[in-house]
């Protein structure tokens, strides 16, 4: 059965591994120079060439797409294709039970997927490590590896995503018995999951850290004027942390709006007009400090809920575990469906 699976799979297998190998070569060639650059310069961001930035963002894009593509193009047709062409009737009458038939198919596909994506994510993680979260002196930055966009494309989670997408595709293909609709449905569900997890699940996988700080000239990051006319304050967080919430709380510890006097207390923002202005404290320093110390006196504090940067690996393993558990459930359902429902 392994021979048959390999024979059916080999073209796609070779194509995918050739692409992975090509990507690895490219990263290996450019990686060491980049690492040296980052080691020798603090302001590495400003020294990056456009190719480097393209590779950085390209690495993110490839790792964002690869699991979905594998799930759709390997997973969905894995069984659905046999069902729609009728070849399952040939396969199921060889001297091998359909449970073993599915096990061989899934085992091979899962292994091939995990290894391919594993190589890719290792290479990208290694390549991007020196410049993750690099910020420029003036403006611009690269995403740090704990931000939702980068987190999903670093470390081990892409392997979890890919295996999940593959098994999701297989199960949907089994249920729908048609490759193309199965691909579409798999993509839709996968994207929904990929949006839902960082929003509602990932922040709680590892207990977040909460700190409360006095709002002062030193901690203030920005004062934002929203289109509704309300003002909010954000304070600095250390680089690389994933901020889940950055809110002002009142003396009783409840999150609260800024007091009404605050907006009149503030000096006029330079270049007034744009709604997202940062109150750059320059010549009017004194009065801003006055406003902030009055805020502090009245008991207002800023509460920061965040995942510190050293939670990267715990979060990675936790999320990978979550996806692999879901994958195991999907695999179990596939076996059940093959034995019970397809007869």
């Amino acid at each position: 059965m392994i021979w048959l699976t390999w024979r059916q799979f080999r073209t796609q297998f070779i194509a995918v591994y050739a692409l992975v190998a090509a990507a690895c070569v490219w990263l290996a060639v450019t990686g060491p120079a980049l690492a040296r650059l980052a080691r020798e310069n603090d302001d590495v961001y400003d020294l990056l060439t456009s190719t480097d930035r393209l590779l950085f963002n390209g690495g993110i894009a490839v790792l964002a797409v690869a699991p979905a593509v594998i799930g759709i193009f390997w997973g969905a047709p894995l069984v659905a294709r046999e069902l729609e062409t009728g070849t399952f009737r040939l396969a199921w009458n060889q001297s091998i039970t359909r449970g073993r038939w599915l096990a061989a198919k899934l085992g091979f596909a899962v292994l091939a997927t995990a290894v391919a994506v594993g190589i890719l994510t290792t290479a990208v993680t290694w390549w991007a490590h020196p410049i993750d979260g690099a910020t420029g002196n003036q403006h611009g930055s690269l995403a740090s590896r704990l931000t939702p966009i980068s987190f999903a494309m670093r470390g081990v989670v892409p392997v979890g995503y890919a295996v999940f997408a593959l098994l999701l595709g297989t199960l949907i293909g089994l249920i729908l018995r048609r490759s193309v609709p199965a691909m579409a449905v798999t993509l839709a569900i996968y994207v929904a999951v990929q949006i839902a997890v960082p929003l509602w699940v990932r922040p709680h996988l590892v207990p977040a850290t909460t700190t409360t700080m006095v709002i002062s000239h030193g901690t203030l990051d920005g004062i934002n004027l929203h289109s509704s006319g309300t003002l909010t304050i954000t304070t600095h967080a250390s680089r690389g942390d994933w901020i889940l919430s950055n809110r002002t709380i009142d003396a009783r510890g409840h999150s609260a709006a800024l007091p009404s006097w605050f907006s009149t207390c503030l000096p006029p923002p330079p270049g007034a007009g744009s709604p997202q202005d940062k109150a750059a404290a320059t010549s009017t320093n004194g009065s801003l400090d006055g406003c902030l110390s009055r805020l502090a006196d009245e008991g207002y504090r800023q509460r920061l809920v965040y995942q510190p940067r050293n939670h990267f690996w715990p979060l990675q393993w936790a999320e990978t575990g979550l996806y692999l558990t879901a994958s195991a459930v999907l695999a179990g359902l596939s076996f059940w469906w093959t034995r019970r429902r397809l007869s």
Partner: protein
Amino acid sequence: MSAVVTADGLGKRYRRRWALQDCTLEIPVGRVTGLVGPNGAGKTTLLGLVVGILTPTVGTIEVCGGRPAADSAQLAKVGFVAQDNPTYAGLTVADHLRLGAHLNPRWDDAAARRRIDRLHLDPRQRAGQLSGGQRAQLALTLGLAKRPELLILDEPVASLDPLARREFLQVLMEAVAEDEISVLLSSHVVSDLERVCDHVIVLVDSQVRIAGDVEDLLAGHHRLTGPRRDPATLPDDQDVVWASHTDRQSTYVVRTESPILDPAWSITALGLEDLVLAYMEGTAAGAPASPALEVLR
């Protein structure tokens, strides 16, 4: 007579529709059994149940002394050439033979290669590029090389032209003679089966109408033609299978064990095709469904 397939009260329901109902039969070992019936009568469902691709909703079925597709040993006993002869379009003929060799412990590789050779199939050709007849032959080769005790073929010749049909059936019959296996094949074309089958099962509207040895069936059925007559006046031991009346004349197909003595009838023998058609039409026309369900012995 031992049975290769024993079904008891077998039924298969898809959602609310019964594809096969109340099927009780025995298929004798070492014979070529034809399963005939119109399209949608439940032939594929019955074969699926015998192979074990389907599981029965009610009733039991035993094939070669075990539950169909229960384990790999059971699977090895039954060969199956499914409808439309499915093959992997992207795999070559040689790949299919390797597939069979890898997946079947009793695989007869030499015989499979000999057969492919004799059929003038190019081992390097992809199955997707074969003609319908060649693909059918390839599927048959896979089924035979597995060396099963029972070979099942579902409408094997339906998509073939008359010449390819004849060739296919010829190859099948040679193989059966060589290997002494039991064969169960379905068709909605009776003339295909007439040449090869010695046992027949007629399936109409999800139910078995009649099953028996071809010789016995032909000996036990007669076409009676004579002056118009009410079926109720026929002797008790003559079961009406099919009837047709004009103003002055009646034609009956009856089943009986005893000789027909009434001199008013002119009696003609039936061919298998006539007999099967009589059963199919008889039910379609809503004729008195005589209790013809039990197996004729």
